[in-house]
C-alpha cells in the first residue's frame, strides 16, 4: 500500500513519465499522417519525373519521358516494346470495364443479401450468414485470381459459343464482384438497421405487406447508406490487384466498356499494369519505373475521390431519425 501512495504523490500530470507516455501515444497517432504525406510525396515525386516538362527540370533525360497530354489522352500502352508508349486510356478503359463488370455481380447480390439479412432473416440465420459472407472478403486476392484462371475461365470457355481466351476480363470481373459483395452487404445492412422500426410499423399499419415495406420504405430510407456502400465497394474493385493481374492478361488496349463482347478478351487495368511493370525487366531510372508512380498516383486520386464522395453522401444525405 505504501508504495502505491508514494507512487501517487510523486506522479502528477506534469511528471516526466506522464509526459513521456503522452508524447509516445501522440507520435504513434501522428505516424498515420506521416504515412499519408509519404504516399503523396513518393507518388508525386515519381510522377513528376515521368513527365517531360517537369522531368527535364528535375534533371531527367527528355527522351525517357512523356508529356502529360500524351499520358492522359492517348490510347497506346506499350512499355515493354519499342517505341515505348504510355497512354493512360488503355489501362483506364480496362479499369472501367472491371468496375462495371464487378458492379453487375456485386451490387444486386450485395443489396439482396443486405435486405434479406436486415428484414427477413431470423436471428439464428443472421448469426450464421453474416460471418459466412465476411469469409468472401477474407480469402486472399491471389487465391481469387487462381480461381478465375484455373476454374472459371475453362468453364466459361465451354459455355460461351465463341470461347474465351486463357486471360479475359469476364472471369476477373466475376471474382472481383464476389470479393466485394461483403462490403456492399455490411454497410447497406447497417444503414437498413438504422431505419427506425416505427417507419416499418407505420407501413404495416397502412396495410402494406413485408415486400412493400422492404422495397418502398426500408430501401428508400437507407438509400444514402446503400449508395455510399456501392461507391466504396467499387473503389475497392478499382484498387483490386492480384486477381486481375493473374486473370486478365498483361496487355492493355482501349476497349469500349459498354460492349459486352469486349469482356471476353484480355485487358489489363491500372493495378495489373503496375504489377506488370514491377515484375518486368526495368531499371530504377527508366521511364517504365516512373510510369508505375504515375499510374499509382492516378489510382490513388481516383480511389481517394470515390472514398470522399462516399463519405460525403453518407454524412450529408443521412436521414436523421429520432
Amino acid at each position, binding site marked *: 500500500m505504501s508504495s502505491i501512495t508514494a507512487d501517487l504523490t510523486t506522479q502528477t500530470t506534469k511528471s516526466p513519465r506522464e509526459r513521456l507516455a503522452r508524447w509516445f501515444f501522440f507520435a504513434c497517432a*501522428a505516424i498515420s499522417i506521416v504515412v499519408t504525406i509519404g504516399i503523396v510525396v513518393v507518388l508525386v515525386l515519381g510522377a513528376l519525373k515521368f513527365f517531360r516538362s517537369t522531368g527535364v527540370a528535375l534533371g531527367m533525360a527528355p527522351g525517357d519521358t512523356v508529356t502529360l497530354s500524351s499520358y492522359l489522352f492517348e490510347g497506346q500502352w506499350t512499355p515493354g516494346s519499342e517505341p515505348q508508349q504510355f497512354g493512360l486510356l488503355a489501362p483506364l478503359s480496362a479499369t472501367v470495364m472491371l468496375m462495371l463488370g464487378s458492379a453487375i455481380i456485386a451490387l444486386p447480390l450485395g443489396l439482396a443479401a443486405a435486405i434479406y439479412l436486415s428484414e427477413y432473416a431470423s436471428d439464428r440465420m443472421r448469426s450464421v450468414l453474416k460471418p459466412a459472407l465476411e469469409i468472401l472478403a477474407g480469402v486472399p486476392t491471389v487465391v481469387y485470381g487462381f480461381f478465375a484462371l484455373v476454374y472459371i475461365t475453362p468453364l466459361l470457355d465451354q459455355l460461351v459459343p465463341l470461347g474465351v481466351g486463357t486471360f479475359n476480363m469476364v472471369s476477373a470481373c466475376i471474382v472481383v464482384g464476389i470479393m466485394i459483395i461483403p462490403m456492399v452487404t455490411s454497410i447497406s445492412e447497417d444503414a437498413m438497421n438504422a431505419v427506425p422500426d416505427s417507419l416499418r410499423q407505420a407501413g404495416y399499419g397502412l396495410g402494406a405487406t413485408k415486400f412493400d415495406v422492404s422495397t418502398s420504405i426500408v430501401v428508400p430510407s437507407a438509400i444514402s447508406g446503400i449508395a455510399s456502400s456501392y461507391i466504396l465497394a467499387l473503389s475497392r474493385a478499382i484498387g483490386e490487384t492480384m486477381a486481375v493481374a493473374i486473370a486478365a492478361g498483361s496487355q492493355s488496349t482501349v476497349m469500349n466498356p459498354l460492349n459486352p463482347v469486349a469482356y471476353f478478351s484480355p485487358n489489363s487495368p491500372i493495378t495489373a499494369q503496375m504489377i506488370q511493370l514491377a*515484375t518486368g525487366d526495368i531499371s530504377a531510372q527508366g521511364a517504365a519505373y516512373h510510369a508505375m508512380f504515375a499510374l499509382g498516383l492516378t489510382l490513388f486520386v481516383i480511389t481517394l475521390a470515390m472514398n470522399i464522395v462516399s463519405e460525403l453522401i453518407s454524412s450529408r444525405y443521412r436521414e436523421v431519425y429520432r
Partner: protein
Amino acid sequence: MATEHADTTTAVSRTRGVVFRYVLLVATLSALASLGLLLANVAVDAFDPLSADPSWYLIYLCTLVVPSLLVGWGLRRHELLVGGIEALFVPIGGLFGAGALFLLFEVIPFNVWFAWAVGIAVPAAIWLLTTIAGTSGRVRAGLTLGVGAVALIGLPLPGVSTTGAVGLLTMGVPAYIQRRVYTIPNYYLTYLLTLAVPIALLVGHQLRKRVSFTAGLTGTGLVVIASLAVLFQTVVYTYVALVLVLLVLVPTAWYCYTQWHDHPADRLQFAFPVTVLIGAGLGRIAVWVLSISGPNSWVDLQFLQDAPTRYAESAGLNPALVGSLLLMVVVIATSFPLGVGAAVYLEEYAPDNGFTRLIQLNISNLAGVPSVVYGLLGLGLFINLGGMSGESISLFGQTITLQGMPTGSVLVGGMAISLLILPIVIISSQEAIRSVPESLRQASFGMGATRWQTVKHVVLPRSVPGILTGTILAVGRAVGETAPLIMVLAASYSSSPPAGLLDKATALPLQVYSWAFEPDPAFRHGVLAAGVVVMIVVLLVINSIAIIVRNKYEAKQQ
C-alpha cells in the same frame, strides 16, 4: 393482421412476397455457394481423393468416422461435445506450433540460437533473483535492464582485449559464445537446454502453485524424463522428437490433467478425442498391414519441406513458409505497438479538436488506399528514400551517402504490409478501448490515478481481448497480401528461404502467384492447388487463434 384483411379485399398477392423472399435468400446464398464450389474444386485438385483405393475409405469409415460420429452424437446429448472438440485442438495446435518452430530453426542456426538463449538467460535470472529477494520495482527494472544490456550487446570499449572474461564483458554473451566458444552442443542438446529446461521449470512451478512442492518436482521430473526418452527412438531425428514432445505431448498432458482435475463432472468429454485418436491410429495400422494405397495427395510432408523446382513432382514451398513466418514477425513487431499506441492516443488523450478529427479522417481514408499503392510507398520510401538513395548530402561538415534498404528484403516487405494493415489495427483497437466502461476510468481517476496509470492498469487490461483479436485478424490479412511484396521485390525474388531480415523475401502468396503462370497442367491443377490449400490452412489457423483468444478472455471477464 392487416395483410390478411387486405388479402380478402384487394388484389394483394402473397406470392409476390414469398417469391421476393426466396429470391433474396438465393442471392445471399449464391455467392457463398460459388465460393464453396471453388474451394471444393481446389480440395479435389490438391488431395486427389479419387486416386485412393475404395477400401481405404471403407477402413477409415469403420475405424474413424462412424465411431467418432456415434460418440460425438452421444456426447452432444450431454452437451459435452464442445469440450471434447476443444481437447482435440490442443495437440493440433501444438503440431502447428512445432511446425512454426522448425521453420524458425531453418532461419536461425542452432549455435546462434544457443548463444542468444544464454544471453537472454542472464537478465531473466537477475529479474527472478531480485523478485525473490523482494527489491523495489525501480531497482529491479534498473538492474535487469543494465545487466541485460551488457550481457546481450556488451560494453563498447575500443582497444580492450576481446579474450577471456574481459571479452565476455566487451562483446556481450551472444557474440562471445559465437566467436570464442568452440564446443557448442549439437542440435539436440541446444534445444534440450533452451526449450526443455524452461518448459520443465514452468510446469513444475505451475504444479507447485496448484498442488504442492513434491507435485511440482514430479512434474519437472516427468518433463525431463520425456525429453531424455526421445534419445531411445530411431523413427525421427532426436531434436524433432524433442520439439514434438515439448510442444505437443506436454501441453496435451497439461490440458488433460487440469480439465480432469478441475471439471470432474465433464470427464466424459475425453471420450471424443480418445475415440478420434484411437480410430485414426487403428485405421493407419490397418491400411499399413493390408498395404492399401491412400489418395495421392499433392499436399504432403515433402511439399512442405522442399524448395520449388521446375518439376511438379518435386516442387515444394518450404522457403515461402519460412518467408511468410518472418514477414509475420516483422508485421506484428511494427504494426502492433504503433496501432495500439495510436488507438490509445485517439481514445484516451486526444482533445476534441480539428487535428484529432483530421487524424481520424485520415486513418479511415488510409484504410481505403489500394494495397498496390502501399507497395509503391515501400519501394519509393524505404528503398529509394524518395529518389535520394545513392546521393550524397553534407551534414555538419560530413558527407554522407544515402543508402536505402536492400531491394526486396523481408524487412521492407514487412514494413510496407504493416503500414497497409495499420489502419485496420488502429480502428479495431479503438473499438476495443471504447468498449471499456467510462465508470471504470472515473473510478480510477477518483482514486487519484493519473491518466497513464489509468491506461496501464484499467483501460488496456480490459481491452486486451478486443485488441488482440483485431490484430490477429489483421495479421491474417497481411499473410495473404501479395501486391506490396511484388512492388518492393521488383522482379527479384529467390527460391531459397531468407536467411535473415535483410535477405530477399519470398512468401506463400508470391509462390502461388509465380506458379499461376506455369502452363503445365500438373502445376495448374496439382502444385498450385496444394499451395492454395496450405495458404488457406494457415489463414484458418490464424483466424481460429483470434476466436480462441476472444472466447478465452470473454469467459474470464464474466
